[in-house]
């Protein structure tokens, strides 16, 4: 190939008055954007290598670095934006599929931001969570329509439940897509906070078995690392049908990420690409799904709830209803802003629907069919803060999955280059020198702090509404009002407009 038309995305600016040539930027950049020039006795930069992950900026002891958007403008064009043009340059050079990581960054309506919460004034008191009990405990799993009791008064018909101290779980992120240290951080934080993390489809590393009580083990189309011991290890099993970032397509973990440990955990040869097929080849219909659900229940003596995770697509409500009747105990729905380690950009940015609308539609449908109380509803796909969680629960979710937010807590700076395997923060990488940058002790604490902080905020918001238990918020759409939403949107969301 001749001249590349690609230009740098970012510009590295260095304040030489401050730079002390300590070279930490150079040592910390897996993309080799910094180097020391002996002749000049100066640190220099290669702008085009920069992905703007902020690692160097964060570690620079003198704050000598700034990263800017590369100041190169195309002629103004609303239609042919620089991004579109650059994408074409890339593809014209490589003939490949545009790849990306993390969630959909495009400018589409974020419904969370059009929902407003209620608070008590006069007619009922708001509750101060610092002084009064405020309960977030949440149970996930199939609930009978009514409880039955034996002669001694013991409950006889309650299926297995997952108990969460707060309605937040770490969503599926496989060992392979993320590092073992990231997995350890998630697992430990989940275990110490009384919540769940999810293995994703990467199997369960031996060192993580100890956190089984707080683990949801996933069974995905690739069946990586799925065996009896694995199923037994978790507190629940999740069948992954789809992922919000890439509905309808499978996964691809490149061979270079399949090192010794990943290979052993996934039970695939070292260095080979781990390809998850787009569909489960034993699930071509809802009946097939039912078979797999019951096969898994059978395999685990009906002791663990089985979750089915789907991406939010157009007819999600009908699909969810089918999944509920197929025997799933939990339905997990992943919205189109959900993150990923790698996805084709076109898929990520154009397939699927917003989780807020999907959630509202599914909750309403399940209620119409009288199924809602039987199955738990977990949603994910870009929960960004505690208010999003409160809104999700008010719309009808039992709990939420957080993925991107958890990774951000661990240090992710949203450079969206996960697929390169060179994550400078030790998260989406298997390179040992990068992996160790994420100290799981610190990671655990950071995640715990996030969960703690969010839980506290949820309590504050609940208290403001005059509610002291999360179950009184669930599906309580009267606590929501819309803003800047049209009639149809309000109708789907099942809420009134602000002021009504």
């Amino acid at each position, binding site marked *: 190939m001749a001249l590349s038309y690609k230009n740098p995305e970012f510009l590295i600016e260095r304040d030489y008055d401050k730079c002390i040539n300590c070279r930490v930027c150079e040592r910390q950049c897996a993309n080799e954007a910094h180097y020391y020039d002996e002749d000049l006795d100066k640190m220099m930069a290669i702008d085009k290598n920069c992905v703007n992950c902020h690692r160097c900026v964060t570690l620079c002891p003198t704050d000598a670095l700034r990263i800017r958007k590369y100041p190169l403008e195309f002629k103004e064009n609303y239609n042919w934006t620089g991004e579109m043009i650059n994408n074409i340059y890339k593809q014209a050079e490589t003939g490949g599929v545009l790849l990306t990581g993390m969630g959909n960054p495009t400018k589409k309506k974020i419904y969370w931001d059009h929902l407003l919460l209620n608070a008590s004034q006069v007619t009922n008191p708001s509750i101060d969570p610092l002084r009064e009990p405020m309960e977030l405990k949440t149970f996930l799993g199939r609930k009978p329509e009514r409880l039955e009791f034996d002669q001694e008064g013991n409950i006889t018909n309650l299926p297995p439940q997952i108990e969460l101290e707060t309605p937040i779980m770490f969503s599926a992120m496989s060992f392979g897509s993320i590092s073992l240290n990231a997995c350890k951080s998630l697992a430990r934080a989940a275990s110490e906070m009384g919540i769940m993390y999810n293995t994703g489809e990467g199997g369960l590393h031996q060192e993580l078995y100890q956190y089984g009580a707080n683990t949801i083990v996933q069974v995905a189309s690739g069946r990586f690392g799925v065996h009896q011991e694995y199923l037994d290890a978790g507190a629940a099993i999740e069948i992954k049908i789809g992922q919000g970032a890439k509905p309808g397509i499978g996964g691809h973990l490149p061979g270079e990420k399949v090192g010794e440990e990943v290979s052993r955990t996934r039970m695939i040869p070292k260095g080979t690409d781990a390809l998850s097929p787009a569909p489960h080849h034993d699930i071509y219909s809802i009946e097939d799904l039912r078979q797999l659900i019951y096969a898994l229940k059978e395999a685990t003596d009906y002791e663990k709830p089985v979750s089915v995770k789907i991406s939010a697509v157009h007819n999600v409500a009908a699909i969810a209803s089918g999944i509920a009747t197929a025997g799933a105990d939990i339905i997990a729905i992943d919205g189109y802003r959900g993150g990923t380690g790698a996805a084709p950009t076109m898929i990520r940015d154009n397939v699927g629907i917003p989780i807020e609308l999907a959630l509202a539609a599914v909750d309403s449908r399940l209620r119409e069919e009288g199924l809602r109380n039987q199955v738990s509803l977990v949603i994910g796909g870009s929960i960004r803060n505690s208010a999003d969680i409160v809104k999700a629960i008010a719309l009808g979710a039992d709990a939420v999955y957080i993925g991107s937010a958890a990774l951000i807590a661990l240090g992710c700076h949203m450079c969206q280059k996960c697929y390169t395997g060179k994550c400078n923060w030790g998260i989406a990488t298997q390179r040992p020198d990068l992996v160790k940058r994420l100290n799981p002790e610190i990671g655990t604490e950071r995640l715990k702090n996030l969960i703690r902080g969010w839980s506290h905020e949820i309590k504050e918001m609940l208290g403001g509404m005059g509610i002291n238990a999360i179950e009184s918020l669930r599906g309580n*759409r009267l606590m929501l009002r819309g803003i800047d939403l049209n009639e149809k949107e309000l109708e789907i969301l099942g809420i009134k407009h602000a002021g009504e």
Partner: protein
Amino acid sequence: MRRIPEEKIMSGCAISGILDRKGRRFSGEEIIKSIALMHDRSNGLGGGFAAYGIYPEYKEQYAIHMFYDDLQAKEEVEDFLERHFMISLAEEIPTRKVKAITNSPLIWRYFVLPDQHKLEQANLSEDDYVARCVFKINDQYRGAFVVSSGKNMGVFKGVGYPEDIGEFYQLEQYEAYLWTAHGRFPTNTPGWWGGAHPFTLLDWSIVHNGEISSYGANKRYIEMFGYKCTMMTDTEVITYLFDLLLRKHKLPLELVVKAVAAPLWSEIDRMGEKEKKIASGIRAVYGSTLLNGPFSIILGHKNGFVALNDRIKLRPLVCAEDGERLYVASEESAIREICPEPEKVWAPRGGEPVIGLLEGSSEEWL
């Protein structure tokens, strides 16, 4: 004017209740006196009474109390009643002119039994059949409202201060072994007759002081079981929840209380293993029935009453015992007004039910 609001009605209130545990009946004078003392807890936009044991001569029949906006509504509903029930007696409920009470609807009562043929066709229990008919009238018949529908009981309510309502309905003429009363202080809508308390379904009657912040969650839950919340009041949803849990799900009252005024997790953690399992199971399955927010309620039933506070006691509730009499009210003074020296007075803790039972009736109410 009848207007069912489209959004939820909020209100503050006074409540009072008297039970004679031996089942001896007494006139409505005492309860009127008691509720009247708490005049300032209402604002004249609603008052009402539930009385149990007032129709001994018709005690096997459902006593349907009705409000009608106009004769047309009355005709339509009576047509419906005739098609679905055998009506033993239809009469206007006697009232007297009271200056403060205006704009009263047409107020009628019917003593009925389900039409056997229709009942068989519907394949429902008598109670379910009656309940379904009540929903249907309230939902589909404009200008008509079922005030109460239990046996040997009735609800008398309207817009006005409760003491005026009592006078209006001539309650001194009725004798009941259980009386509950309500004075209302709605904050947002002009009172309408149907919106006054007590709210009822079959034998259940509820008087309620408070604001159920969990209303949206409770409503959407209960609606999955075929209930229709048309009134947009907390009272309505509370009534249905009790109906569902006690009558339909046949949960013991003690467990129903553990659902609607669930013990805190911190309390559950201190329970014994078995009790803990039950309490957590209840919370897991019946979380959506938890009544959250400040409330005190008196749930009336032919076998007695349950008085209950929210679990962190954000609204007042006082009880007293004197001989066979059990009193419950928003304020102690409302009890002492009619029973100056009760043997025992206490304020139940949040979430701790006060159960008053007629002698001889079992704890499992149904």
